[in-house]
């Protein structure tokens, strides 16, 4: 009995240590998890340019992110095939396209039902050149187009 008693009296400190270490590790993992999602969000803006959300409807039916990356050829629409998928009922399945050619970004409507707005005006069938700071609207959602400077 004596040996067991001695062992138990030593081991109890180790046990408490282990459990607190466990709690510490779980908290650390949770923390890493949180910073991981933050990093994922930063990657979105890591393209040549991005669309920054400037207005939105008061709806929580779907998730909208604060910014979406714009690359050399970016399609926007409701369907999941698009590079930027926004499941808003006012958007067409493939709504618009932003592409990069000769050092400029161009915005073009892909025959959407509700049209695409450029600085408050419908662009119709025209293709417009985008400059940093321009307002681009699809459905009820308005974005600000921003080119990153470090090119």
């Amino acid at each position: 009995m004596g040996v067991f008693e001695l062992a138990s009296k030593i081991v109890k400190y180790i046990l408490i240590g282990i459990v607190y270490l466990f709690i510490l590790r779980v908290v650390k993992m949770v923390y890493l998890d949180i910073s991981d999602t933050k990093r994922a969000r930063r990657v979105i803006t890591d393209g040549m340019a991005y669309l920054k959300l400037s207005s939105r409807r008061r709806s929580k039916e779907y998730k909208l992110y604060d910014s979406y990356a714009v690359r050399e050829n970016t399609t926007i629409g409701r369907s999941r095939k698009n590079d930027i998928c926004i499941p808003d009922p006012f958007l067409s399945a493939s709504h618009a396209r932003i592409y990069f050619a000769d050092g400029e970004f161009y915005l073009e409507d892909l025959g959407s039902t509700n049209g695409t707005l450029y600085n408050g005006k419908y662009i119709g069938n025209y293709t417009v050149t985008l400059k940093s700071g321009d307002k681009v609207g699809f459905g009820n959602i308005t974005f600000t187009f921003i080119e990153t400077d470090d090119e």
Partner: protein
Amino acid sequence: MKFRFGAVSMVLLFNIICFGLLYFYPGADTRELIMAVGIICALILGTYIIVYAFNLGDPYPFLTVAMLSSMSIIMLYSVGIKQMAEIENPSVSLMPIAKAQLKWFICGIGVFFASYAIYRLIKGWEKFTYFYMGMALMLYLISLIGPLKSPVQGVHNWVKLGPVKLQVSEFIKLCYCFAMASLFCRKTKLTGFKEKLYGIAREDVVSTVFVYMCLGFFILQRELGTALLFFFVYLALMMLYDVPFVMPLGNIAAVALGVLLLYSMGKIDYVMSRVEIWRDPGIDPAGAGYQITKSLEAICSGGYFGTGLGLSPAYTFPVIESDMIFSAICYEMGIFMGFAIIMIYFILSYRGFKIAIEVSEPFDKALALTMIISIAGQAFIIIGGVTKMIPLTGITMPFVSAGGSSMIVCFAMLGILTAISHKKDKSKLQVDKM
């Protein structure tokens, strides 16, 4: 994906050290202990790897639960071994309870995967409100009348199903969570309920009637802890879903009035005696106050670091395997372990709330909230009870107390919570794709 083994290895190490220590207890059944530690470690590691590798959802709730349940099994084995060595013919034999707890843990892991799969495969859970309510009503009736009822110490809460005795209140809790979630998920912050009946939303009427029906049945069953828990969940949901502040206050007033009425009729003397014992356990330390006196004695004698595993006389205490297991853990492993358990419950509820915030579907959100509030509330009621913070009511400590129904229902809730957290992962993947 990178595996993170840091936390799960701590759980395994904890199990191995504890069982390794008990192995050297003079007269212990060593084969049984080796088998137990093998099964526990294999199940925990296996489940963790499956959840991680197949990306089934959030692994953290399972990790915290693995720690809690292994603590429970170790504690029961420890007091069981000590009792076998000290007493010849005990009134309550603890060793079979420990073995049963191990079996229920194995079942629990099975239930975890089963409920996970069922919840993900079946769609449209929010439509069956009246089915959940009917199930709850049926369970009440089975426990009160009918051939299956088998009350224990005046509590009409047990049903005998062949060789196993089940506590129906645990299963009613699951029905209750689903019913409340399906009612409250129709509510949005801006519009409230759409269908109105005489100016009051239909869902509000249904949920109020259902809650008070549950409370009434629990008073008939003499199951007060669960009644308190149900009311707590209801109040929390009302506050979360932005019902005008009149509703929670009105409900509190209604319950207070009901309690007063029942008190004046002399129907709930057993409640009042518990409140008196809570205010001063000294008035009847050997009778009604026996449990709370012993619980406080256990926590005090344990001190900061406890007596060490297998060294305390905790096996002589009443209901050590269920209500008082927190006191027993404090006795043998110290109050620091008690703090650790409370912290683990905090982490579990934090993850639960986080899952509820991140999912977008209203029913998933409401269900995750209801389940996590009920788990956290249950832990609060029983830990508060044994530490004499609130009156002691018999309720199980989720994942820690011995008992089949409690383990199965808690693991089912954990499975559903993990299934809900998987939906959050899907929306996150979309971000990564872009």
